[in-house]
């Protein structure tokens, strides 16, 4: 694989959740023009997929990208090249500019669309730098106002661990009145994903949140920083169309 000659040529890696199999699909969208007006800038990206281990299960180098050249990659097609059909893990994108070192910003934002064949699931998730770039998720403590547990709504917690060691964390849910209820200590494997419905790990959540109409605030406290997201499932409509990242403690 022809690539950059030194580490400094690389952009900061970006991470995202990727899921393929059992009727769920992921598409990767790469659009370098988000950070460039220069038609002469040419980029190439190396895409790696991890499934809970430190070794990538797939490495793929893209064709040349540029201002007028965007790219869509179906994860199913990438996996087929590696003889796999399913994955629930991490996507890592490392971009580099062909011929010249990277300029600011040192990453190329890209998006993943994740959807299911039955139409129940349809979400988009931005890829984010874990360190050194956009400071979206830079704290060990994360917040998500508006998590829900009631007859028509349920919240799922998604945590990504783009490091080579396990990270443990707790989930604390505050009711609208400020009372708290906590999960046991949970754990994300190296280069792994944690996905669970909130009311399955925080005991008696629906009763806890009932005084606030079923809504509360989530506090995630890790022993190291994690990339946090929540999904909202509309149980009555049988739809999951909401996925967004948590907020960090700005001044912590």
């Amino acid at each position: 694989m022809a690539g950059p000659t030194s580490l400094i040529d690389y952009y900061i890696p970006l991470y995202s959740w990727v899921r393929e199999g059992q009727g769920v699909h992921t598409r990767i969208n790469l659009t370098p023009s988000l950070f460039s007006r220069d038609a002469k800038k040419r980029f190439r990206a190396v895409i790696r997929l991890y499934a809970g281990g430190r070794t990538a299960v797939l490495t793929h180098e893209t064709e040349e990208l540029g201002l007028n050249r965007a790219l869509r990659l179906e994860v199913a097609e990438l996996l087929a090249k590696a003889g796999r059909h399913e994955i629930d893990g991490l996507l890592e994108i490392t971009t580099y500019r062909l011929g010249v070192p990277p300029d600011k910003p040192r990453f190329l934002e890209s998006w993943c669309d994740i959807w299911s064949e039955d139409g129940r699931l349809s979400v988009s998730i931005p890829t984010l730098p874990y360190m050194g770039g956009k400071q979206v998720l830079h704290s060990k403590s994360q917040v998500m106002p508006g998590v829900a547990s009631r007859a028509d709504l349920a919240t799922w917690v998604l945590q990504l661990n783009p490091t080579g060691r396990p990270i443990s964390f707790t989930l604390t849910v505050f009711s609208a009145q400020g009372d708290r209820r906590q999960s046991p200590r949970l754990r994300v494997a190296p280069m792994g994903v944690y996905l669970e419905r909130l009311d399955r790990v925080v005991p008696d959540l629906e009763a806890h949140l009932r005084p606030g109409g079923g809504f509360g605030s989530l506090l995630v406290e890790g022993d190291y920083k994690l990339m946090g997201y929540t999904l909202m499932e509309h149980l009555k409509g049988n739809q999951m169309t909401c996925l967004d990242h948590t907020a960090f403690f700005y001044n912590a």
Partner: protein
Amino acid sequence: MGLSRGPELTPTASETSFRDEVICVCYRITGAEILGAINEGAKSLEDLQHKTRVATRCMGCEVFVEELLAEFAPMADGSRQGLRRWIRRHGTWRVVEAVRKFRWDLRKWWDPTRLATWVSEEPRMHTRLVMANLGLPDQPARDAYFSYELRDEEGTRVHKGRTRIRPNQLWIAEIAAMLREAGIRTPWAGLFFLELPQVLGSRRFYVHWYNDVSLTSTHEKYPVSRRKHEGYWTLSKVVADDRFETHIALANMDHRPYVTHMVLMTLDGQVRGSTRVTLPPLGSVFKGVRDFFCKQEPNFRDDLVLYLDNPIQPIMFYYFVLDRERGAWQGQHL
């Protein structure tokens, strides 16, 4: 040309129009743009070059730009300490002069944090705001006081209020209730602004756009006017058929009109449609992609990317995909 220094340099007619004066003749960059960049955190010549392109070509303005930086960067960091240091160096009277001459917004030294989002109230989509005020063991929460306002699509303020969130409590606000309180009939869409006079901590608010069968949520945004990226905002999920349609909410968080271009291109760079969008100050718009492009692209195929020009102005860009069959919305910020 130099900056006024000392009491003998009371602003002259030419200096009072400094904001409109072109400092960098190569790129026609005005004093207002340079001060704006300093105001937003540029601390070095390199920062200013990156943010505004000033002093990057003939370099004729470099000396003057460095003079501006030396004088105003310490004061522009928005902290009380920065202001105190600046006053010690230049004297109190210079604050008055700076406010008058450069139209400094003194509210910044009260450290307000402005957050904003686009909101909608109609039969198919309702909006709920949720804001936390949590503490950490080493950073206990305090009462959070904030003021808020609603602006309609033309940018006119139609409602304002103040409230408080106790530590660890959650603020839940339904836009429908605010509109009822303001005597506004729905459907209605516009901007929600929040001003918080404290550090953020956990005080971020998220937005739920929901109906009987779906709920989609994302966070608000800071209305900062720095040019963060030099490229284009892009949206890869552009669909418009009998069942699905992408809708775009654009909100101008600036006190100037916002003019931009949207372009639809295929993955290999062929233009399929373009349109010009103009928003009034603090105004907003929400439309389906078909309406934006006036049916220029009758077949919204699967290989289209939407490009939105990204000038030096604070805007918000959310998109929503409506599944007509299920009545569900999927939304996300860009």
